[in-house]
């Protein structure tokens, strides 16, 4: 392994050629950096598979154990519980995907890769933007697999058909993207994967369960109903559900997407600011 074979002169000639490239555009930077993250996943799909386990367990649990809810009064008539729950599971899984963006940022801040990027003439923003683009793509694939599994194994066949399901996938992707900024902001600020995971569970569980995800809102205790109504995830779930049912409600959809954009608008600058801090 010692003593490189190349002679000094050849070496100097090759290393010394100063490339005369003109600066890359932010678009190229985002494309190159998100391509890197996605290629890693293609080569090592374990992360994708692992991230599907939790939602599938939830699917089995809720699908089998609580399907009796569908027979309780107040539950929309003529709808299978699986059709009711799956759009919600898509949205809550997208939320956990957003958390993974944050975790990825903390590991890269730690292993020095980000230090190299920050010493290069590229925009710091494109590093985070690329992360979020890559994670939305990953999340979209994961969620599609989930919907497919649900259709094949659990009889998921909502009235909205494929278009409806694609619509709920899109809503879920928006949730993943905007909440990804929240977690990336925490990640850039705290820089510790362990703390981020804890904060992640603290944030995601109330958002997930105190929502319209698993039971209709009237099925929740009074004190939770108030929170479930303002919970941004509730709106996204309602929007996704409406799409799957083939009855998209534009007001609900606008509230959900608008809320998500607002969250991203607040947290993306915070993420960038903390990220630039050494």
């Amino acid at each position, binding site marked *: 392994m010692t*003593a490189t074979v*190349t002679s000094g002169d050849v070496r100097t000639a*090759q290393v010394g050629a100063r490339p005369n490239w003109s600066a890359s555009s932010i678009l190229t930077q985002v494309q190159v950096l998100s391509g890197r993250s996605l290629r890693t996943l293609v080569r090592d799909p374990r992360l994708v598979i692992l991230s599907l386990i939790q939602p599938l367990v939830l699917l089995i649990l809720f699908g089998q154990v609580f399907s009796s809810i569908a027979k309780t009064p107040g539950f929309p008539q003529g709808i299978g519980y699986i059709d009711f729950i799956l759009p919600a599971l898509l949205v809550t899984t997208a939320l956990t995907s957003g958390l993974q963006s944050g975790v990825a940022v903390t590991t890269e801040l730690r292993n020095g890769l980000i230090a*190299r990027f920050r010493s290069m003439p590229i925009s710091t923003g494109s590093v985070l933007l690329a992360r979020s683009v890559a994670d939305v793509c990953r999340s979209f694939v994961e969620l599609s697999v989930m919907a497919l599994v649900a259709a094949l194994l659990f009889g998921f066949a909502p009235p909205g058909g494929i278009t409806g399901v694609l619509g709920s996938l899109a809503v879920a992707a928006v949730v993943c993207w905007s909440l990804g900024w929240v977690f990336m902001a925490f990640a850039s600020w705290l820089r510790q994967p362990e703390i981020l995971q804890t904060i992640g569970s603290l944030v995601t569980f109330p958002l997930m369960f105190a929502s319209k995800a698993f039971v209709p809102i009237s099925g929740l205790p009074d004190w939770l109903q108030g929170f479930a109504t303002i919970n941004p995830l509730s709106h996204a779930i309602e929007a996704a559900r409406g799409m799957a049912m083939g009855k998209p409600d534009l007001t609900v959809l606008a509230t959900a997407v608008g809320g998500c954009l607002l969250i991203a608008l607040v947290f993306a600058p915070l993420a960038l600011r903390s990220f630039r801090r*050494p």
Partner: protein
Amino acid sequence: MISISNLTKKFDSVIALDDVSFSVPGGSVLGLLGHNGAGKTTVVNILSTLLKPTSGTATIAGLDVTTEGDKVRRRIGLTGQFATVDDTISGRDNLVLIARLLGASRRQAAQRADDLLTVFDLTDAAKRPVRGYSGGMRRRLDLAACLVGGPEVIFLDEPTTGLDPGARLDVWSLVESLVAQGSTVLLTTQYLEEADRLADLITVLSKGKVVASGTAAELKREIGQLSVNTVLAPGSDTGAALAALRAAGLTPVTAEQPDTIHTRVLSSADITVVVRALDSVGVRVTDVAFSEPSLDDVYLSLTPGRGATTAA
């Protein structure tokens, strides 16, 4: 090319750099020498725009690192103290990624990556994930990565720490060939031998302060001309030996092994003073030799708070 004046950096209560000034002329290598915690990485981080100084200024090619960061980043290449490559992708993909980010087209990036892989003797491992590389291979890839854009100024933070001797020689010869092509290099190291071999100028940093600077020869001259090295017989009382030498008006220091004592003297006649002093306290000597001052001596006399160094 690099110019630092009155640079101070505080981390809360820790003063990492205290009024540091030095400059590096274009095309030369400056060795920043210091123990762990001396402030070497802090200097490199400020120069590579990763950290803002608390006060003072630093410029690269006349560009201020705090206010003209973008222009500075076009001219520098950084190899940090800890590996700064992506473990999960291959060595070649790492280099292509960097070239693309620097504005190369796909073809140009591939060409540049392949050239550098050849030069750094990584062609065989090019397609394997970096996770499986040895320490030396990783370091070479790291060096290659900082050269992708053909930077004018290169920062190498402890480039050989933790490498086996063979890999270290490789890195040395690579650094030498970089300098031969006219790059300006700032290299930090804990090894005197490394600074002596690679650097034109040496700045010794201790607890955030510059304690000496100059060429290796100047530093040696400053510290004295000659020293007498005595090896004590096994089981000797080193403490008593040091006390006796001090009593004779000399300034002894222990070297890597506690049974070896370096004593600075003014002329060769002083060897008898050394031997007599040791004899007077009954310490037997198994070997006596003169030596020209080494950077070790410079280092030991300038950086208080640590006895022996383990530098190779």
